[in-house]
């Protein structure tokens, strides 16, 4: 479902898509991004393939992407997501140790890697830092 949102001042809110197979994590990340970050989560997806469809539909500003998922994993979905939406800030948020997976994620097209368990303010700060690098904050 597509949602177009604006802030109280009329500015267009930055739009995010969350791709994670754990429903609670999708809910909580939505809470983090919308409440603390001021983003609007336009769609969530439970696997890489559904995530590609969501990104194709919305071409969001931010994509939060898990790695280990059914149907299609995050590393497989990443190049397609980057190709569909070249200007999106793609942040991989995974349970795997950052030292082991960061290089693979960045090579596949991610902008940043966050290990699951990061505090909400760190998640928001990382997203904003990547958006700043891309000139979209």
């Amino acid at each position: 479902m597509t949602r177009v949102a604006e802030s109280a001042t009329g500015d267009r809110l930055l739009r995010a898509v969350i791709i994670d197979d754990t429903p609670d994590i999708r809910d909580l990340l939505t809470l983090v991004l919308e409440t603390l970050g001021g983003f609007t989560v336009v769609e969530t997806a439970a696997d890489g393939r559904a995530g590609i469809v969501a990104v194709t539909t919305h071409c969001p500003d931010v994509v939060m992407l898990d790695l280990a998922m059914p149907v299609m994993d995050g590393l497989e979905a990443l190049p397609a997501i980057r190709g569909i939406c070249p200007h999106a800030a793609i942040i991989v948020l995974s349970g795997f140790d950052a030292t082991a997976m960061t290089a693979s994620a960045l090579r596949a097209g991610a902008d940043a890697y966050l290990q699951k368990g990061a505090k909400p303010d760190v998640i928001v700060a990382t997203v904003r830092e990547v958006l700043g690098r891309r000139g979209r904050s």
Partner: protein
Amino acid sequence: MNDVYWRVGFVANVVVAVAYLLIALAIVVPLVRSRQLGSNRLATATAAIFFTCAIHHGGHPLHMLLPAFGAEVQQGLAMRQSYDLSMALWDIVTAAVGVYYWTLRRAYASLTRGAQLFEDVRQREQQALELNDNVLQGLVVAKLALELGERERAEAALEASIAAASTMITKLLVDGQHSAQAGLLRSTPALTEGGKT
């Protein structure tokens, strides 16, 4: 008497070569089918050892046979001459071990059936990874929920993680067929609070 020794050695080495070659094939074929020839290096190396031993043992009877066809007469006859009682006995023992191995494989057919042996290992690794990931995701949800003030969701996630971890270690204990003593005796105390026991 020397004729008897080399003939015994001839037959025993043929048996050893066939047994070892079949063992190498029994390892390689499932590895190829499960696409683990490159990744499961220990199994591949084991197969290589059996293959090279099969060639080595197969070479002995070949050398002993060639003089009968007028080829490599000098070397072949020298090998026949070199055979004595101890060499013949060791070849019989080696052949007996090879034959015994194949009788065991038949007895444990369900455990060693083709690709299933290696495929099962891969499936179990995948299951273990997913079970561990379930526990991790539950803990991540609990931490994030606590930080966002969602206490009930955090408690539910913790309970799910504890149940998943309990199922996992119980399954490991039962599947490993440990005796109660061996399975419950830890090598080090359990760690909590960032390394404090």
